[in-house]
């Protein structure tokens, strides 16, 4: 029973952490818009934490380049399992308009495994919330 409650709680309380690669800031403000009273993701138990050790879901916006790949990897490794990764925006998916740049590696999945892709340039807040909900599907499948 306790295990069931734990696995239910995972879906009820995803703490998100936001990592900004080389974003144009378009997707970032959309992520932050989710936290404002208009969208109010806290009603789903989502809390924006600044500490990878407390986070369950990592939101990555922007391109991943040779510089920040190490940082992203490091943050990802610090998050205790079970965890999910969501790539946001065209940049996070593939590199977007910066794809051809000499320093850009491409999407987030070049560095860490990604569970959910949220397309858009910028991604809409509704789509980001949908993405988090889809990532929770992964947690629900887990046994406590």
């Amino acid at each position: 029973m306790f295990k069931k409650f734990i696995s239910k709680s995972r879906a009820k309380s995803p703490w998100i952490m936001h990592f900004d690669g080389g974003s144009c800031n378009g997707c970032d403000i959309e992520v932050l818009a989710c936290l404002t009273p208009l969208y109010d993701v806290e009603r789903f138990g989502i809390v924006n934490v600044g500490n990878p050790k407390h986070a369950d879901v990592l939101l990555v916006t922007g391109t991943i380049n040779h510089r920040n790949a190490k940082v992203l990897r490091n943050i990802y490794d610090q998050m205790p399992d079970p965890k999910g990764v969501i790539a946001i925006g065209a940049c996070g998916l593939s590199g977007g308009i910066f794809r051809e740049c000499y320093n850009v590696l491409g999407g987030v999945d070049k560095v860490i495994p990604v569970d959910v892709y949220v397309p858009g340039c910028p991604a809409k807040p509704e789509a980001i919330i949908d993405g988090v909900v889809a990532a929770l599907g992964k947690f629900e499948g887990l046994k406590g």
Partner: protein
Amino acid sequence: MKTLILIILGIVVAPFLGGLIAGLDRKITARFQSRFGPPIVQPFFDVAKLFGKVKVVNNFWQVFCAWIYVIAAALSVGLFFAQSDLLLIFFVQAIGAVFLVMGALSTPSPYSQVGAQRELIQILTYEPLIILVFVSIYLVTGSFRIDEILQYSQPLMHKLPLMFIVLGYALTIKLRKSPFDFSTSHHAHQELVKGVLTEFSGPYLGLIEIAHWYETILILGICALFWHTSFIGMVILLVTTYLAEILIDNTMARMTWRWMLGYVWSIGLAMSFVNLIWLYAG
């Protein structure tokens, strides 16, 4: 036998009450910000989820400290329900508070270190005030034992109104609410990341959360002593105190620790003196 039952009752019931209060707190805060807010049982989901996470520890000391913190908090609430000695309760909860700081100090992370230093300053700020409150309760009722305090014929509030405000300061610091949330912050996106709690993760963070619920109940219980004569009066007092606490949390910005130390000590000591002089001269 009765005492043992009361202790167990306290240890079992207190975290549920504390969790509900924390949930209500978040809900009311959300309403203040014209949001809908999470469900009231949200803190239980959070803690259950934390217990389900993989254990990541830096060293053994951290685990030990988290356990001592929660055990001390539970024990102090148990002793409170068993109507034991106020001073004993005070020392037990102080041990817990110090172990939390030691756990944070045991890791090299700068956030954790700074948070621990600030937590120490917070402890330094509120502990003398709590002692003053206990001493003034003693001066009025002639006893540190809760069962004897409960025998007192009129509400302590009549004699010690200013001491209640002093206790309110201690409550705000202990709950780590603005403007006194130096060592950590509820929504950890500020300069400290999460302060003392930075290096605690997964189940150990959950333990600390539970200990925090115990502490909330303990301090609210001490507040309740100020209107022990009628149950309704007690409930009204607690509800207004906690609502005021949430209001202050939402309207105040964080200041520096120097400001906290100077402000809380000067106001707290001044109020205590005025109250005690009034008690004797009046």
